[in-house]
């Protein structure tokens, strides 16, 4: 049994049919990349897992438990963390408060803060600053730290390098690798070399369907067929 199994899900925004039968599996301990052009349904796949945009049909199981029909906080309680695109840190809360709010009820807040600040020392230096005052890279680290302290076994990470300066991207890649040591990762990433560098396997989405999958190797970035999908 895979940690996460998505089976033939169909997800809509209003009347727009976004996911047209996506199926994929993520094994415990893996980093799986979901790649594809803008608008092919990568983010919608993550939102479907979290039931933020619930599929109209199909099945999503996590450790064998059906997620479709659950509420988002119930999915999160099972150990599924979300690190969304554009970070979505709580800008009016301090760094410490952003981490505290992500600790499950009854969890050890001090241990969570220690984990977050040990993993990302740059955050420790700005622990009392409002998250809105952090740089883009620091906000991304905070978003990942929030996922880490949530005691999650599966992290859904959406476009972690989006909008960041090239010199910051390597820091964020390191942060994702840190996260991958703590949890299984389903990673949405448009930066193909970065995705292949971080992932064990990949799925290529196009028009709401999985069109390719395989081992994540540097050779994938040179694959003409895949490059065509990404540039079409």
């Amino acid at each position, binding site marked *: 049994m895979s940690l996460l199994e998505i089976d033939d899900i169909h997800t809509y925004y209003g009347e727009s049919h976004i996911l047209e039968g996506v199926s994929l599996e993520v094994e415990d301990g893996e980093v799986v990349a979901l790649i594809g052009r803008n608008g092919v349904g990568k983010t919608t796949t993550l939102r479907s897992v*979290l039931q*933020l945009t619930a599929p109209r049909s199909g099945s999503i199981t996590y450790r064998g438990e059906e997620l479709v029909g659950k*509420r*988002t*906080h119930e999915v*999160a*309680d099972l150990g599924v963390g*979300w690190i*969304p695109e554009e970070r*979505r840190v*709580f*800008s*009016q*809360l301090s760094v410490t*408060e952003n981490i*505290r*709010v*992500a600790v*499950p*009820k009854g969890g050890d807040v001090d241990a969570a803060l220690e984990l977050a600040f040990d993993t990302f020392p740059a955050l420790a230096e700005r622990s009392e600053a409002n998250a809105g005052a952090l740089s883009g890279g620091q906000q991304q680290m905070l978003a990942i730290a*929030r996922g880490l302290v*949530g005691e999650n076994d599966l992290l859904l990470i959406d476009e972690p390098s989006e909008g960041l300066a090239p010199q910051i991207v390597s820091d964020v890649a390191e942060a994702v690798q840190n996260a991958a040591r703590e949890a299984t990762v389903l990673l949405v990433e448009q930066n193909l070399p970065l995705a292949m560098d971080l992932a064990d396997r990949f799925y290529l989405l196009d028009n709401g369907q999985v069109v390719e999958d395989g081992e994540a190797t540097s050779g994938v970035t040179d694959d003409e067929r895949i490059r065509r999908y990404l540039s079409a």
Partner: protein
Amino acid sequence: MSAIVPTLLAELATLPLVSYIDTLGQFLRPSTLVGVFVRGLSKSAIYVMIASGLTLVFGLMGVLNFAHGSLTMIGAYLGGLVMVLAVTGASGTVSRFAFFLVAVLVVFGALSALGGVIEVGLIRPLYDRPPIYQILLTFGVTLVLDELVRIVTLFYGLQPISEWQAALGTKPEPLTATIRLGSTTVSGLALFEILFGVVTVAAVWAFLTRTRYGLVVRAGSEDSEMTEALGIDVRRVFTTVFALGTGIAGIAGALLMWDPVWGASVPLAAETLLPAFVVVIVGGLGTFRGTVVAALIVGMIDAVTTWWFVNAVEFTGLPEMFIFLILVVTLIVRPQGLFGVAEVGGH
């Protein structure tokens, strides 16, 4: 045209400018300033109490609760009922204050429960609809509640008098007296209102900044979807905050039952809703800090203009116009309010 100009000039010449300068001198006397300042603070205290619940609910849920004033009005009647039943002619000052605390607890409990029922039963099914549905619903709720209270009060003969005199009569003696502050005197009730407002603000502030639930509320106010994805049942938080907001509205009403300017009366619903809207819009929709600052500004301007229009112009309706003038200027100059963000999102 040629006839109008000399007439205007003649009228301007007759304006009592000297009288206004005299009035300015009178206004600037320390005793007057202290008196106006205390009255401003007491108005601010009332405004912050009636607006706190409204801003908490809007900040978290994006719901502009038009029934808020009606809940304040019900709080005034319910608080008054507890006081009228408990207070006898033999009740002393201490016992009257003690009864008032009991009334506050009863009102808070009852109004919170009512708020919880309204949120779960009426508003929750409409969260996925455009905001106009919630506005229309809460407007409908206010009409129903006002009529219900009108029917009950008419049945028991509590209306049509504008204030419920029996409730007013339960005030402890220090609140009916005036207290000397230096060279001026202020009403005991004004000082009590200030104290009560400060306690309310401190309690809400402590809740928001010192408790995990408050942290969740602040996070949910900024981005409820992200908060839910962190494993927090945001719907339950919605219910709690709506109940808390209506409870605070009720407490404000319990305080207003003793104020002869307000009193327990059906029109109290509209009379408190409008300034509450002004305060939350001026402060920035959904920001508690903004609500506190806006309440101070609006209260002070209200007190100053009231003094001027009573002592210089003798047109008592104008101070209320000034409150709405503040609203108009804010909407033109800074539509998001003093502490609001340009766009409220996350809902």
